[in-house]
């Protein structure tokens, strides 16, 4: 029998976080991610963990910074406007080499924007989640099941490389219920000898810090960090290939919009147009190699996003010699399969 249960995306994320061995949550209410806070406030105190509703997103992310410094797995969650406030803490976490998970259930912006789903925080997540030379791991799942799956990977790699990770979802994925099964997996949390959990008289004091007053010291530190970023880029980009082998029209989409794009691709195939999709699961590291391979034999390339066009810039950087088209809806509007199909049809007869 099907062992899967129906769960809201937000609740599934929360449960996955707990199962990944993270019992400390610091948050602040904001739609459309409130079910995460609610779920955590119900479960964590009974598991001996912490649910703490902070006075602001800024305080919450700095509590995450403190908990991460103490050497435990910890998480904070918000939606777009709140993530803007968290960028301070994310930058400090990067500068102090602290692991941790930041969840962004995106809504439309700029400003207060809308509570409807959006993918307009791509630039923020992948290019500048805080000030300074830095990167964070960014996971962009497109089903409730995949949201659960990437939580484990995100924590593991965040711990391994001492780089914060972000789960970039949106109002659709957070609010919807879908069948989900939790992996039968015990968390494997590495030792953290750098943590400020007390010397116990056994070692020299540990210092968690992002301040370097000597420019060359900071440069060395940043360069060392970029070596780690390079390792992540070389080994941990993830993407799904959907009917790319013989695709004439290659779509590139992630998260919620990739679900709609898949419908459009199936419809196009029914009409004799060979469409396919390369779906980045990690937005940083961006799956350049997978994209290059998928694009090789495609005559046309179309990026679909719920924004005015952000990931498309990375697609163009990865494919400098190719013409890359873009189709997007923004402000909380979800594109329909029919709209995307029209775009595919327009490209269907295109030449390379």
């Amino acid at each position, binding site marked *: 029998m*099907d062992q*899967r*249960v*129906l769960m809201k995306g937000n609740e599934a994320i929360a449960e996955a976080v707990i199962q990944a061995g993270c019992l400390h949550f610091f948050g602040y209410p904001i*739609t*459309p991610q409130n079910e995460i806070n609610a779920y955590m406030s119900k479960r964590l105190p009974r598991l001996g963990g912490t649910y703490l509703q902070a006075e602001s997103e800024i305080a919450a992310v700095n509590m995450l910074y403190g908990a991460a410094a103490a050497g435990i797995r910890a998480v904070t969650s918000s939606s777009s406007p709140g993530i803007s406030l968290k960028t301070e803490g994310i930058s400090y976490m990067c500068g102090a080499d602290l692991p941790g998970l930041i969840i962004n259930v995106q809504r439309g912006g700029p400003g207060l924007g809308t*509570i409807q789903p959006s993918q307009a925080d791509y630039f923020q997540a992948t290019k500048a989640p805080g000030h300074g030379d830095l990167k964070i791991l960014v996971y962009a799942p497109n*089903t409730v099941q995949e949201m659960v799956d990437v939580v484990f990977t995100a924590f593991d790699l965040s711990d391994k490389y001492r780089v914060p990770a972000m789960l970039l979802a949106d*109002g*659709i994925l957070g*609010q*919807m*219920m*879908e*069948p989900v099964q939790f992996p039968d997996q015990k968390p494997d949390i590495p030792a953290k000898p750098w943590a400020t959990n007390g010397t116990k008289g056994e070692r020299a004091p540990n210092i968690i810090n992002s301040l370097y007053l000597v420019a060359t010291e900071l440069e060395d530190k940043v360069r060392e960090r970029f070596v780690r970023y390079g390792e992540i880029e070389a080994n941990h980009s993830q993407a799904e290939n959907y009917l790319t082998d013989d695709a004439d029209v290659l779509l590139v989409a992630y998260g*919620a919009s990739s*679900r*709609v*794009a*898949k*419908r*459009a691709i*199936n419809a196009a195939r029914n009409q004799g147009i060979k469409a396919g999709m390369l779906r980045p699961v990690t937005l940083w590291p961006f799956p350049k190699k997978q994209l290059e391979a998928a694009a090789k034999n495609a005559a046309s390339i179309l990026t679909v996003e719920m924004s005015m066009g952000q990931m498309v810039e990375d697609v163009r950087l990865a494919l400098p010699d190719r013409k890359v088209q873009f189709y997007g809806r923004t402000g909380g509007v*979800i594109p*329909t*399969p029919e709209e995307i199909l029209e775009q595919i049809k327009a490209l269907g007869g295109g030449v390379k």
Partner: protein
Amino acid sequence: MAKSFSVIIAGYGGQGALFTGKVIAYAGLIDGREVSWFPSYGPEMRGGTVNCGVQFDDEPIGSPVVTRPDVLIAMNEPSLTKFIDQVIPGGKVILDSTLIKAEAGRDDIEVFPVPASQLSNDEGLEGIANIIMLGKMLKETGFTTFQTIEEAVRKSVPERKIHLFEHNIRAIKLGMSL
């Protein structure tokens, strides 16, 4: 049955629209279909009405937002007014005629008025008029089997409320008899 199937369930908060949707979604899951459930959220809920959309399909579901439902379950008048025009031609509407006096105003769909609130009071099924309507929907659409719905109810009712299971099954049967 059609390849894809979608339902909107709408009513006042507390009438069980979201729960009804969950039972329908579980039925799809048990039947091995691709399923999604998507609620109204944010300020939309503050007006006192809630709704959710459920979809079944043979291929992975794109957007879970239901815009053109095959079936509408309307538990109050604002819900009927809000969603009636979205129902596809040939679609079906189950409405609670105890609470809804307005006409559907369309002749290209089938409308099934059920005095669900009245019946739930008369039959000792207080608070689960929604499940009576679900029974009626099952009868009129045949979207799944009674056995599946029974299992779906079992999965949807939280452990601590399992004593209500028999009540729900009786409500389904009552709805199916109408």
